[in-house]
């Protein structure tokens, strides 16, 4: 029996602006298996980030249910949701979302502080993680003193701090050049293959195609189709195999 990490049931999200109601998600049903690398693709405004927020418990659906590890997220208490964000998920954003008042190292230790990990242990782990993402020599710099690619590496290290089972990434390469983007994708893919972390990433970036196990195409708040890796490889070939 497949091990389902994320399951959404008829998830609807409406945004109300005055008397207008915008239906950003119009009944999304997906199942994601543990260890998969999933890319959410679709045109701008199709609802990728909105779905990302629902899966990551960063916002509540208007209707429908999200299950993570078999748990109905709408049944969790505030404390459980905080613990869920702290332990189960690592978030990576397009605009990095580092805390500017904390160094790279300080950003990586923060989720461990929230998790109650003793100081010595969390300091060592932050160093290890920053080393791993290639920032061993920049640990005590503030985010302002780092390049975009370096900031995203800090964000990745921070996302890994409490050994999450899911990495949620919303357009992690959108602000980066092709080469740096490639490096970030490889780094995320490496976590996926080596540590079995489930990766769910919203993206426009075609470089993401060949590392994904499945691609979920979103259009107008609906799942348009789901493509498997083998289908993708054919299409990538057709596109012309540049790079």
């Amino acid at each position, binding site marked *: 029996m497949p091990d389902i990490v994320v399951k959404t049931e008829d998830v609807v999200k409406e945004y109300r602006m005055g008397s207008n109601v915008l239906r950003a998600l119009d009944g999304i049903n997906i199942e994601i298996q543990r260890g998969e690398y999933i890319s959410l693709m679709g045109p701008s405004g199709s609802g990728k980030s909105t779905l990302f927020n629902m899966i990551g418990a960063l916002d509540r659906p208007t209707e429908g249910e999200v299950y993570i590890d078999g748990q109905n997220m709408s049944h969790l208490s505030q404390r459980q949701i905080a613990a869920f*964000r702290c332990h189960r998920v690592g978030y990576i954003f397009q605009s990095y979302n580092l805390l500017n008042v904390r160094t790279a190292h300080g950003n990586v230790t923060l989720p461990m502080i929230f998790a109650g990990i003793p100081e010595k242990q969390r300091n060592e782990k932050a160093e290890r993680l920053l080393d791993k993402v290639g920032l061993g020599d920049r640990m005590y710099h503030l985010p302002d003193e780092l390049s975009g690619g370096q900031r995203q590496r800090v964000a990745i290290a921070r996302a890994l701090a409490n050994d999450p089972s899911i990495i949620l990434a919303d357009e992690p390469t959108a602000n980066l050049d092709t080469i740096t983007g490639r490096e970030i994708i490889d780094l995320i893919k490496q976590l996926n293959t080596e540590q079995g972390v489930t990766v769910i990433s919203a993206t426009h970036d075609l470089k993401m195609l060949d590392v994904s196990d499945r691609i979920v195409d979103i259009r107008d708040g609906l799942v348009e189709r789901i493509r498997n890796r083998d289908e993708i490889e054919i299409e990538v070939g057709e596109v012309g195999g540049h790079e």
Partner: protein
Amino acid sequence: MEQQRPIEEQIDLPFLESLRISFQSLKIRFGRSIITTAGITLGIAFLVSVWTNNEIEFALQESGRSSEIANLDEASEQGISTKDIWLIIMSLIVCVVGIANSMLMAVTERFREIGTMKCLGALDGFVVRLFLLESGFQGFAGALIGALIGLLGAVILGLKNYGLDLFFYFPLLPARPENGPFQLGVLLLILFGCLLGMILAVIGSSFPAWRAAKLPPAEAMRTEV
């Protein structure tokens, strides 16, 4: 492969850890913190100088020196004049509005930070406590400096008007305690200024921080300033 385990409850942070995080944040945002604190300092300085000035005038009139001095205002026998009460009330209002405004601005530009901390597992209570600590410290420091500046201003003005007599009759304690709340004496006044600055800063920042902490992180992080 991992088992499907139930989701645990988030723990509270030890107080010291919160204190450390808030001090770190104040330290790194020093330049910005100074600007916010300056808002508090100015408000309290204004209030304390107007008020002290008033107490000085009253004390010197009480001392019987008022006849020698050109009539500075129409202070009556009973003490403080209506005009002065108005001036004090106006300066209180300026102070409240100024501090509330600068704290609100300071919190609003940090909505994204609040959303991000919640993504990393912060409880709403932690966010509020962090802002409470930061603003309490800022409020007290800013108000103390403001009170001293205000006092200095009033003393300089007093010296100009009354010369060294000022120091003989300096109203450290209320000249006439029975005159009610508008005559505190300078010592109490400074204490009052510090407490007022601190309380206004704490209220002015924890209320918006509490509202931001209640928002789903996705919304808090959308806010651009």
